[in-house]
């Protein structure tokens, strides 16, 4: 979006270069101090005791289990929230109904609630002493301190990402194209797959990426429902904490570097998409009104 709003250099009013220079330096300095330095420290610490220790920490069975679990949780939570996000954005932007404002507020709820509280909610509901605990135990279903609990907590925390990415875009695009498709005889699914989806694909991918990044990195909510059973219910962020508490700093940083790498990968993809998606918007958005 920013690319569209940029004013060509020759059209900008002339101004002293000192102020922008200072502001840029301040912003860069801040970023360097609080973002780049810690991130670099992760990699430096991870490799401090040599590559051998690093590899050993990463291929440790418990680390491998944590990686698998993290991927599994993300693989369930992200598609669920993608479907929910698209459905919610569709409902919010294409229909008028009672309680629309409430739905909007509910979608934002996970953003405003502390992740730890979200985790606790599930323990209170499904834990051994929780509302549904006895019933679940009677039917031998284990949610809390097990993988389903991790998935539930992750779904809750990452729920807003896709919907919030799509709603403004779908609002600005309006429903003219969908109505045109309907008058031309398209069915609901044809409208969705041939008109709606292509129009939102980049924003959707962007939302999915953010959702995925959060799903893999979530600590608070997951920590509460996990129970920290090594090799069973430890995701990568939890594994890092355990290693750190065991004074295994090199190991902790090695595993943390995996997470950092995933984050950088997401960032790279996101930047690529922004570039791609921005170009798409600029090239294909109708001009002239």
């Amino acid at each position, binding site marked *: 979006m920013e690319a569209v709003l940029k004013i060509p250099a020759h059209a900008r009013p002339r101004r002293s270069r000192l102020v922008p220079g200072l502001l840029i330096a301040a912003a860069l300095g801040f970023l360097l101090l609080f973002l780049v330095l810690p991130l670099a420290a992760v990699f430096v610490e991870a490799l401090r005791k040599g590559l051998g220790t690093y590899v050993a920490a990463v291929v440790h069975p418990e680390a491998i289990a944590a990686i698998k679990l993290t991927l599994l949780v993300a693989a369930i939570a992200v598609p669920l929230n993608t479907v929910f996000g698209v459905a919610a954005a569709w409902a919010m932007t294409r229909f008028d109904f009672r309680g629309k404002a409430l739905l909007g507020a509910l979608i934002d709820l996970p953003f405003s609630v502390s992740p730890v509280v979200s985790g606790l909610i599930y323990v209170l509901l499904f834990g051994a002493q929780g509302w549904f605990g006895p019933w679940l135990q009677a039917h031998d279903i284990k949610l809390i301190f097990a993988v389903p609990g991790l998935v539930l907590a992750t779904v809750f925390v990452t729920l807003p990402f896709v919907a919030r990415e799509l709603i403004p875009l779908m609002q600005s695009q309006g429903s*003219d194209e969908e109505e045109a*498709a*309907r*008058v*031309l005889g*398209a069915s609901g699914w044809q409208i969705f797959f041939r*008109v709606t989806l292509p129009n939102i694909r980049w924003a959707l991918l962007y939302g999915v990426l953010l959702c995925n990044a959060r799903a893999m990195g979530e600590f608070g909510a997951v920590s509460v429902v996990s129970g920290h059973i090594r090799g069973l219910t430890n995701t990568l962020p939890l594994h890092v904490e355990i290693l750190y508490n065991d004074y295994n700093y090199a190991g902790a940083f090695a595993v943390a570097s995996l997470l950092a790498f995933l984050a950088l990968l997401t960032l790279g993809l996101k930047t690529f998409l922004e570039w791609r998606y921005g170009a798409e918007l600029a090239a*294909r958005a109708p001009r002239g*009104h």
Partner: protein
Amino acid sequence: MTIAITHLARRFADFRALDDVSLSIAPGEFIALLGPSGSGKTTLLRILAGLDFPDSGELTQDGRDLLRVGARDRGVGLVFQHYALFRHMTVFENVAFGLRVRPRARRPSKAEIADRVDKLLKRVQLEGMAGRYPSQLSGGQRQRVALARALATEPDLLLLDEPFGALDAQVRVTLRRWLRHLHEEMNLTTVFVTHDQEEALELADRVVVMSQGRIEQVGTPDEIYQQPATPFVFEFIGKSNKLPVRIQNGRLHAGDQRFDADGLDGIADGSGVAYVRPEHLALTPTPLESGWRATLRHIYLSGSVAHVELDVPALGQTLEVELGGEESQRRSLQSGMSITVQPRHLTVFPLAGNSGEPDITRRRVVHPRYGQAALARWR
């Protein structure tokens, strides 16, 4: 394929978008829905398209109840105000869309679709543009793609929402002519919405003037302009002067003038409003018995027409007059000069006794009677 609209009503919360609208559309007719924004014309169009449904009333096509048929199956072509082209599809894909989404049994073969799209693109003069995206087209070209897309499914009824609204003036005029030709060629029943009276009067066989969810008048462009049925139509279409008048003993009083007049039979004494078109006022510099004395305040030529603004003290208002440009030059009209002005005919609406509103059921066209000597000789 006659379409009958009967007593349609549609409300949005507290807003009456349509209020008891009835209209019949004959096969092959070219109809303009004309009105200011909020007059309900777009709501009516959307109901015809099946994108909106009325709260009450009926809509039938040769006796078939159209309100039971959704937009998908109604078989109408619709061109949106901002075209609503599928932005991620090429011109070809846009036009082919309506054919490609058909169920397999009714879907033409690929070759047939390509053939049909090519023909349509030729018809809308966009050969060679098939591979372009909407963003690579000008406004006028997009408009024609939207039209080709709407025609691809061979609809019985073509609907256009402000078809020229987003185009610049020149393209608009060209496209207007072209659309009129296309209509004559295809003879397809067409309804279009516009707020531009010039567009409506130029294109349509019949114009439906709407205001506040109601139909004010239906008629040919000539009828709408020459015989406006209501004060709204007078004020909305063309220019007009509005005067307060009194009717007394079959005579029309306006300002200091009392006109013996034809056409006031059966109208009881009372107040009224009169409308007179600028070209229905006659001017002469000679002081005459009948006719208001006025001062020419301003005159300007626009093309072949001279617009004259008169101060009329007896009426306490200004009057607008139009006459041929050559005429005005020959008579060397100048600002500041004294003038006598006479209405050739006026349309009078007596005020209703209870509401004080103009009563459109007692509308009269009034011709003042001037003696030979009292007649302005110009025009």
